[in-house]
């Protein structure tokens, strides 16, 4: 089982993963599930009316706007990093938080490395399945490396220009 790290109230913690991440051809299981966008669109009504917690996995090429109307029904959205160099998921998470107002879990899947903890947290990710064996402690250290930030982002950190005005 890959480790799940969650960021709750500013703390990184190893967490139990309640969700089953289902491939498109995998049989549906009981309990909370994560599905691809395609599968979710095909099966959403049956799933959601069953009262189940549902998450959607978004490939880097998929537009988060396609989920806009479903977001209130979703417990989790999981943008995927096909390679850590592929930064599209940063935009996906930013739009989820800042534009679409999603308040559920935003989970980083794929090539998720601690070196990007800082960027992911700032874009609004709050759960992580690291691909490099890193621990919650590693993530806490990496994400907290910088005492200041220059931009307003999807997290609640005060940018330099706000600090300066105080």
């Amino acid at each position: 089982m890959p480790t799940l790290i969650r960021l709750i109230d500013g703390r990184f913690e190893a967490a139990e993963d309640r969700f089953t991440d289902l491939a498109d051809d995998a049989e549906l299981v009981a309990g909370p599930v994560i599905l691809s966008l395609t599968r979710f669109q095909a099966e959403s009504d049956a799933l959601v009316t069953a009262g189940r917690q549902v998450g959607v996995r978004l490939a880097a090429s998929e537009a988060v706007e396609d989920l806009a109307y479903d977001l209130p029904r979703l417990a989790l959205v999981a943008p995927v990093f096909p390679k850590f160099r592929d930064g599209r998921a940063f935009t996906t998470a930013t739009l989820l938080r800042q534009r679409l107002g999603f308040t559920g879990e935003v989970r980083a899947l794929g090539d998720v490395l601690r070196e990007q903890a800082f960027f992911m947290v700032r874009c609004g990710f709050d759960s992580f399945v690291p691909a490099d064996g890193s621990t919650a402690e590693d993530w806490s250290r990496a994400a907290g490396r910088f005492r200041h930030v220059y931009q307003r982002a999807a997290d609640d950190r005060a940018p330099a220009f706000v600090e300066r005005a105080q």
Partner: protein
Amino acid sequence: MYRYDAIDRDFLADRAAEFRGQVARRLAGELTEDQFKPLRLMNGLYLQLHAYMLRVAVPYGALSPSQMRAFAHIARTWDKGYGHFTTRQNIQFNWVRLGDAPDILDHLARHDLHAIQTSGNCIRNVTSDPYAGATADEADDPRVWSEVIRQWSTLHPEFSFLPRKFKIAITGSEADRTAAKVHDIGLVVRRAEDGELGFEVMVGGGQGRTPYIARTIRQHLPASRLLSYLDAILRVYNRHGRRDNIYKARIKILVASLGAEEFARQVDEEWARSGPEADLPDTELARIRGAFAPIAFEALPARSEALESAAASDRGLARFLRNNVKAHKRPGYAIVEIALKAPGATPGDASAEQMDRVADLAERYGLGDIRATHEQNLVLPHVKLTDLAAVYQGLSEVGLGYPNINLISDIIACPGLDYCALANARAIPVAQAIAERFADLDRAENVGELKVKISGCINACGHHHVGHIGVLGVDKKGEEYYQLSLGGSGAQDASLAQILGPALPADAVADAVDRLVETYLALRQDGERFLDTYRRAGMNPFKEAVYADAH
């Protein structure tokens, strides 16, 4: 100079500490080279042919004397006594040890310097006009906006893993000294008719394998909306730029494939959805503007008789004044360009001794301000006319008084195969051969402004696409060959050079340039530069001159 505050300083210290940890993990085997490479690149550290190369940012090309001395110290302590100023106003150290890199970053941070985002697929160090704050023809000081962009782009949460690198240039002057039209984004600061400050926004310029001149997507962006509009451009690029082919990943390819109008429409659509919180508050804009130390210019006479009589008896000084000294916005002051292009020199290289001297002269005569240019020279932007002779003397003593700015021997050249792991052919020796051919300054002055730009591979770091004469090194069955092209310009009249003909062997390049120049001299009409004559007369006469023997 923009004065860093505690926040800016903490940031650099944190970054240096982070890199120290990453280097330690690499050396201990906790990070593989594949994992470490993007991290070191984000800190400007490349592995080149002979050693590591550290590229240090000179934000918008502006340096204080103490920062220049910090470079000299690094050159002496951790390198072989020299550094190389690049076409993006940065400096590179060619002989760095990985084990020393953390100490170098610490030393830089102590002088408000860093190597952040000098490589990698992120927003690179923003470049600007080396005459900023000194030239009369600017609508606003572009350094203020450069600093705004420096802060916005530093560790940008959303735009640090773009499809490819991203370069922004800003000029406040119609005379473009930044090559803005061959940048991913080029910004020209202007005042509208009603006096409102704004930017012409040009997107999708670039060189490399597929060169493009940038297209204007907005004539007048209100200055206060700069960051939200940049966010919109970067967001469209981050989402839709190609990631399947490294050669097609720059924003120029996206702009070209969508068309500038469609790209602009997508940007506008995205921009319309962003709120005012995406822009910098006016109070912070004002703070940044105020953090540039005011310059105390004196009221001076517009002429200096002492200088004029000194020049009358010193041909070298007279030539220096003609070629290297430019008009300043204030009477009694001048802009001094320092050519890093003396005969036999490597274009852009400066020794530690030379850096220290430039720092001393800037402190004593130049109001403590130094600039690096994208043409690989240095500038003292504020020198009194009455001090010019002393500055010329001080520069000449360390081999920096060579009076060839904008002449044919003032050549841009990338490091090429002498240093660079990507190069196919050398660039430096070719530049040296051409410079030597035109070492007669009377002849060079007669030829006038002629920009030769040399790249050692198709990545075009030597700007060959925008050279009046461009030279591209190619590998022809393992031998160095050079393809010449004519008619490029990186200035406000930007254009892409066209290939002259088949590539030439290394020892034929200087001869060919000589023939091109003779052809120009024979054809030129009143006041025409080489570029103007080429544009009027076309390729044929030049082609015949170089390839006549081959017929």
